[in-house]
């Protein structure tokens, strides 16, 4: 597949990620990163710092003493959430716009990616390769970014794709996107990742999260963890509209992730708990997350 010129033009017009977001992503792409590096990047960015401190001091965290530095916020928010929220903040113009081409509302892309990120991190605990643990969260945050670009080109199409998938004309929503646009949200997302110069591991996740078996071997476990994390998010009802649950699970995940049915129920539960806490903190008294 090649991305049609009109869509390529939209990708080229996306503004670059902030310097802070780029530095954070490159830090967490290294499995042996130092938490202090994250603190240093956030502390240098006044907007990020203000946002994170507002979150940690929200009612959802129930702290008796206000937190006033990024370093003190880390134990409460966790490194993952700090990175995830920072990325969301830096790309809020993409995450928060309504995906009309998927019949979903403003903010749905962000809540879906957030829940998938939490779930992917939980799933990664059962991965044979434990080095993927920290980058799975960032991969989950980024995985569906392509939808923010192609949504406008899919307007008027969701019902046709859903009908096609229900009738067996399309095996899943991806195939519908390809039939209508000649590309899909994975390929377009990978182009956005390249535009932002994301690390290779994250670009691979964005490109292959629906077909993780096609991911380069060195990023395959990561792609499977995000693939399954997205299913956990959708099973919890947090999707991006008409495409929710309309995908195929790659059964070969068992070669990379060893998880039982009971363990998956624990993943679903833990994901739901953490998701509700974060969303409650992020939307505390606000119309939108960012």
């Amino acid at each position, binding site marked *: 597949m090649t991305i049609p010129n009109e869509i390529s033009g939209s990708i080229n017009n996306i503004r670059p990620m902030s310097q802070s977001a780029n530095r954070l992503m490159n830090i967490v792409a290294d499995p042996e990163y130092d938490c202090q590096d994250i603190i240093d990047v956030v502390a240098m960015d006044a907007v990020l710092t203000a946002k994170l401190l507002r979150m940690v001091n929200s009612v959802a965290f129930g702290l008796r003493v206000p937190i006033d530095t990024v370093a003190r916020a880390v134990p409460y928010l966790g490194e993952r959430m700090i990175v995830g929220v920072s990325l969301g903040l830096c790309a809020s113009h993409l995450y928060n716009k309504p995906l009309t081409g*998927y*019949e*979903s509302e403003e903010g749905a892309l962000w809540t879906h990616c957030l829940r998938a990120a939490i779930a992917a991190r939980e799933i990664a605990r059962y991965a044979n390769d434990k080095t993927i643990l920290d980058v799975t969260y960032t991969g989950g945050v980024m995985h569906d970014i392509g939808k923010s670009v192609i949504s406008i080109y899919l307007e008027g199409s*969701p*019902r046709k*794709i*859903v009908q096609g*998938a229900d009738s067996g004309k399309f095996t899943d929503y991806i195939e519908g996107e390809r039939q209508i646009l000649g590309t899909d949200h994975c390929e377009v997302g990978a182009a956005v990742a390249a535009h932002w110069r994301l690390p290779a591991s994250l670009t691979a996740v964005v490109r292959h999260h629906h077909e993780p078996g096609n991911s380069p071997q060195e990023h395959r476990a990561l792609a499977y963890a995000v693939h*399954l994390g997205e*299913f956990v998010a*959708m*099973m*919890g*009802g*947090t*999707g991006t*509209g*008409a*495409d*929710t*649950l*309309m995908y*195929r*699970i790659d*059964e070969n*995940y*068992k070669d990379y992730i060893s*998880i*039982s*049915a009971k363990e*998956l*129920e*624990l993943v*679903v*539960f833990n994901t*739901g*708990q953490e998701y509700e806490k974060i969303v409650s903190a992020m939307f505390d008294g606000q119309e939108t997350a960012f």
Partner: protein
Amino acid sequence: MKTILLGVGDLGVTNKPGEELQAQSLGAGVAVIVADSRTGCIGMDHIALPDSTVSLRRAEEKPGYFADTGIAALLEAMKVFGSNISEGGMIVKLVGGANVMDPNSTFNIGRRNVQAVKEVLWKYGLGPVAEDVGGRVNRTVTVESITGKIRISAPGREAWEL
């Protein structure tokens, strides 16, 4: 119409005309709907998982979260409104339980939720008279008080009734 939203693990009961209960974006979760044909009282539980052994603490705080604790709590809540299964007239319907087609069975939580709900209902001598479950559909369900009318919607589809 006043809509009472039931989040994940919430259960609600009403017998007031002009009120309705709604559970949004069920995903693999199941809405258990019980209508008392004698009193017009309706109850609904938004169940997330089949089994409370995942978190006994959560089951204590929010019994509606799990099938094995939620249905008992729902029937108990309906007693306050004069609805008692011993007097008959209870109509049960199920909505949700979307399923992921996993040949390894691990991810089929929607199916396991529906099965767990039915097993608990059978212990009370109850069973669903109608259900709209399974498939790759992220349903939102709304139930009207008194009439017990059930509307289901999902993005990308026309709304329908059960």
